[in-house]
C-alpha cells in the first residue's frame, strides 16, 4: 500500500488514490501538518525570545511575555481603563474587520465588473485599461486627503480607500484571465449557439475563476495591509489606528500585538477563501 514513487511533484499528483488507501492517509497527513505548524510556531516563539533578550531594548523587540501582558491588558478593563483608548483589542479588531470586509467586498465586486469589461469590450478597454493602471500606481497616502474632502472623516472615506486598494488585483487578474480564455472552448460554446453573454458566463468566467480567486485573495490581503493607512484619519477604535497610535509613542509591544492580531485574522480569512476555492473549482488542473 506504499505510494508508488513518482517523478511528478506530490501536489501535482495523478488523481485520487485507490479507495481503501484514501481515508487514513488523508487523516494522518492532516495530523502531521498540524504538528509541523505547532512546532514552527514554537520555534518562532523561541527565536523571538532569544532575539528580544539579545536586543535588550523593548522598543526594538519586545519580549513575547511583554506582548502577552499587553494582550491581557488590552483585553480587560484595567485600572479603570478599558483596553486601549477605551476599546478592547477585540473591539478594535472587530471595527477594522468590518471595514476590511465591506471595503474589499465592494472592491472585489467592482474589480470583477471592471475586469470582465476590460477583458471583453475592446472599446472600453482602450480607455479604461490605462485608467486602472494609472489608479493602481497611485499611493493611497497621497490621495487619501481627496477622499476626505469628498467623503468626510467617518466610515465612507475609509471604505473607499480599502475598496480602491482591493479593486486592482481582482480587475487585473480577471482581465488577464478573461483575455486568455481558451479559444477552443469559446468556439465550442459559440457552435452550440451561445450568445456573447452566454460565452462570458459559461466559458470565460468559469475558466477565469482560479485567477479571480487569486485576485480576491490578494485583494483581501491588500485591504488588510491598507487598514493602517485608512485609519490614519479618525481611526480609533480600529486596529490600524491603534497600531499607528502606539507606534508614535514607540509602544512596540502594542504595535507587535496589533500586527499579530492583524496577521492571524488575515490567516483565517485567507483560509476560508482557499477552502471556498477548492470547493468551487473542482476542475483545477484538468483541461
Amino acid at each position, binding site marked *: 500500500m506504499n505510494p508508488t514513487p513518482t517523478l511528478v511533484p506530490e501536489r501535482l499528483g495523478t488523481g485520487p488514490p485507490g479507495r481503501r488507501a484514501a481515508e487514513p492517509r488523508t487523516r494522518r497527513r492532516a495530523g502531521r501538518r498540524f504538528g509541523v505548524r505547532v512546532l514552527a510556531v514554537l520555534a518562532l516563539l523561541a527565536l523571538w525570545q532569544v532575539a528580544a533578550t539579545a536586543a535588550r531594548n523593548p522598543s526594538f523587540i519586545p519580549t513575547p511575555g511583554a506582548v502577552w501582558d499587553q494582550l491581557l491588558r488590552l483585553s480587560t478593563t484595567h485600572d479603570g481603563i478599558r483596553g486601549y483608548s477605551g476599546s478592547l483589542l477585540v473591539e478594535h479588531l472587530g471595527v477594522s474587520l468590518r471595514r476590511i470586509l465591506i471595503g474589499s467586498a465592494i472592491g472585489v465586486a467592482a474589480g470583477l465588473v471592471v475586469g470582465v469589461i476590460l477583458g471583453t469590450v475592446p472599446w472600453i478597454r482602450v480607455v479604461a485599461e490605462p485608467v486602472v493602471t494609472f489608479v493602481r500606481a497611485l499611493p493611497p497616502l497621497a490621495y487619501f486627503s481627496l477622499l476626505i474632502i469628498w467623503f468626510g472623516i467617518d466610515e465612507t472615506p475609509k471604505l473607499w480607500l480599502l475598496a480602491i486598494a482591493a479593486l486592482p488585483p481582482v480587475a487585473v487578474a480577471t482581465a488577464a484571465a478573461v483575455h486568455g480564455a481558451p479559444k477552443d472552448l469559446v468556439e*465550442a460554446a459559440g457552435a*452550440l449557439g451561445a450568445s456573447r453573454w452566454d460565452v462570458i458566463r*459559461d466559458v470565460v468566467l468559469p475558466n477565469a475563476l482560479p485567477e479571480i480567486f487569486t485576485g480576491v485573495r490578494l485583494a483581501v490581503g491588500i485591504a488588510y495591509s491598507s487598514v493602517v493607512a485608512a485609519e490614519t484619519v479618525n481611526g480609533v477604535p480600529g486596529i490600524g489606528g491603534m497600531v499607528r497610535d502606539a507606534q508614535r509613542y514607540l509602544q512596540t509591544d502594542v504595535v507587535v500585538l496589533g500586527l499579530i492580531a492583524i496577521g492571524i485574522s488575515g490567516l483565517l480569512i485567507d483560509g476560508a477563501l482557499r477552502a471556498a476555492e477548492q470547493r468551487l*473549482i*473542482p476542475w483545477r488542473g484538468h483541461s
Partner: protein
Amino acid sequence: MSSTPDAAVSVHEVEHVYGTGPDAVTALGPLSLEVPAGSFLVIVGASGCGKSTLLRLIAGFEEPTSGRVRIGDSPPTPGKGAGIVFQQPRLFPWKSVGGNVELALRYAGVPRAERARHIPELLLRVGLRDVAHRRTWQISGGQQQRVAIARALASDNPLLLLDEPFAALDALTRERLQEDLRLVSAQTGRTSVFVTHSVEEAVFLGSRVVVLTRRPGRIALDLDIPLPRTGLEPDELRALPEYAALRATVSQAVRTAAT
C-alpha cells in the same frame, strides 16, 4: 424531430491560407463544392489535407482567404443553423457530463423543465448511461467524444458538421451510431458534412463522397453513392454488390490522392 431542410452549402473557389509571409501555409483549395439540402456529404483525405479547415470555413470560424462560402444565401455564422462536432471533444471541464449537455440544450432554447428529461435521452442515444453526474475527466476518451456528439445533437440544426466523430469508438458502438445517424438524416432531411478516415464509414454513411488530395486539399474524387437511404437493414446494405464496388473505388481514390 422536426427540422428545416433548407441548408444548402455552397463553397465557391475557396482557398485558405494560414499565417502570412514566409510562414504562410496554404491549407486548402482552390475548391468548389455545392452541397444540396438534405444530402449527406462525406469527406475523406490524408491527415493534414485540410478537412478540418473546410469544416471550420463552413461553420464560419474561419474566413476564407479567397472565395466564398454560403449557407443558403448568407455567409455562415457560428452557432446559427449548424451543429458541430469538433475533432477534439472540447467539453467544458467546469460542468459535469450532464451539465455539458444541459448547456447545449439551453443554448438550443429548450425550456428548463424539459432539459432534465432530454439529458439522459441524448446520452443514451450515444450509448452512455450513468455518467451524467461525472466530471468530464472521469470518463474515457471514447465517452468524451460521445458526449460531444450528444451535445451537438441537442439542437435540431438543419446542418450538421462532424469532424471524425467516431474515431475513438470501438467497432460496435461506431456501427450503432452510424446507423442512427444515417437513419435520422434520411428521415429528417437534414444536411450533413462528415469527415472520416474510414472508407467503409464513408460509403455506408454518405450520399456522396468527396476525396481530397494532399495539402492544399482539392477535390480528387467526387462520387455519388446511389445506395438506398432507407428500407434496408445495415447488413443487407453492406452485402449489396454495389457497396463493395463503391468501397473499392473510394479506397483506390484515397490511395491515389495521397501519393
